């Protein structure tokens, strides 16, 4: 299981303010707290700083790396910001968020994956948008799988994101994701699967409960990475518990370890 801590994102008000006031201490603490809570990677996204994103990316990546030695997930719709972030990464193999099968995006991002030998989040969308069904998503998966592996990217470095859309606007939105996961696991057993969870509950009450349930459901279908808030103890409790129940945690060692650390104490 790979947990990508999502909190260092300037679309969150506190982070935006910290970036604007160059409050390095806040960012360092947020980085450290996420790693302490079990994150393996830290997402760094300052896409909302549209007029000085590169500068802010540089400051964030440097600041985060003052606090932790974790690898980073460099996240931006802007390829220049991604390259800026990648060029500064010091620890481990970086992860790029994200490439798609959109022609322009693909051509912009692929060279960065190759140059920095990065892991890559591959979104199941192309120039026609997000496909509605699992079958149509699989066409995009196949296309991306073929072109990425032909370009020399290792299967183990590809993280397919089936793209989670709200069940409030389409009854089958959740189940299409689950079916996509099953198909990816069957056809491409070596690649990884990743997603964020919160989109699924948009427009509905009790969003936390739905997000937690969707974590369990997607894990059952083979999801092995998430972009989430690792400080959410209930969610992290479900991650570790599900792994034990799914036979992914030898002798329940990890589950018992987080239990002893007090994760399940309210």
């Amino acid at each position, binding site marked *: 299981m790979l947990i990508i801590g999502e909190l260092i994102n300037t*679309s969150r008000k506190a982070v935006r303010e910290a970036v604007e006031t160059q409050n390095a201490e806040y960012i360092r603490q947020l980085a450290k707290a996420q790693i302490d809570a079990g994150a393996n990677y830290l997402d760094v996204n300052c*896409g*909302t700083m*549209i007029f000085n994103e590169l500068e802010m990316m540089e400051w964030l990546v440097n600041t985060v790396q003052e606090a932790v030695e974790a690898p980073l997930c460099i996240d931006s*719709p*802007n390829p220049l910001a991604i390259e800026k972030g990648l060029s500064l990464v010091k620890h481990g193999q970086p992860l790029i968020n994200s490439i798609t099968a959109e022609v322009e995006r693909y051509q912009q991002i692929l060279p960065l994956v190759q140059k920095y030998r990065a892991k890559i989040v591959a979104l199941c969308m192309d120039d026609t948008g997000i496909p509605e069904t699992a079958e149509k998503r699989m066409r995009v998966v196949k296309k991306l799988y073929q072109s990425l592996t032909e370009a020399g990217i290792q299967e183990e470095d590809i993280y397919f994101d089936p793209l989670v859309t709200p069940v409030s606007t389409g009854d089958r939105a959740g189940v299409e994701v689950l079916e996509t996961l099953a198909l990816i696991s069957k056809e491409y057993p070596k690649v990884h699967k990743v997603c964020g969870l919160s989109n699924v509950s*948009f427009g509905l009450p009790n969003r936390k409960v739905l997000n937690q349930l969707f974590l369990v459901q997607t894990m059952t279908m083979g999801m092995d990475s998430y972009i989430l808030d690792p400080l959410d103890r209930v969610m992290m409790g479900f991650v570790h518990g599900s792994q034990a129940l799914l036979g992914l945690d030898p002798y329940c060692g990890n589950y018992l370890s987080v239990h002893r650390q007090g994760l399940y104490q309210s």
Partner: protein
Amino acid sequence: MSDFDSLAQIVISGDFGGAKTLTQKMIDNGVDPLEIINQGLMAGMNVVGVRFKAGDMYVPEVMMSARAMSTGIELVKPLIADKDMPSAGKVLIGTVKGDLHDIGKKLVVMMMESAGFEIIDLGVDIDPATFVKGVKEHKPQVIGMSALLTTTMLSMKDTVEALKKEGLRDTVKIIIGGAPITQGFADQIGADGYAPDAATATELCRRLIA
């Protein structure tokens, strides 16, 4: 309860079968089709809008209500001359160039249609020239632009500039929305308004057109 109140209630509860039956019954009884819309279907949808905004109704319920309303509208529409069809205004809407996200935009379209606006939905990946062409062709009172990506939101500014260049800027109000959009950004690019959600966007349109 009057038939109008019952019809409004049926729309609120999202009962599209019931909306069809009662609308037909009212037509057969000779009720004025315009009143069926204004005092029945639209009255119900107005309540839905208020409840949604207040957090008492949720997206799937609003979708059912909208569908119930349009089931009724389809029956009465042929009985009303086009020029008499009540309209809150005409809105041209699209997701901007380079951006393929349409869930948010679809919700806005649904809420606005339900509030009686005539919507021309250009779709996704709409460049400034296509917005300009749409304004010339459809003469809307409002343009709504949506963007989910921080890289594509800048295209909103290009559309504003393109409209200025064509001398059309003062003929329309421009509203924008989407995850990365803020009121500050709207002010910066010279848009007339920003809305954080579909219900607010609908209110914003009403206010701008009034």
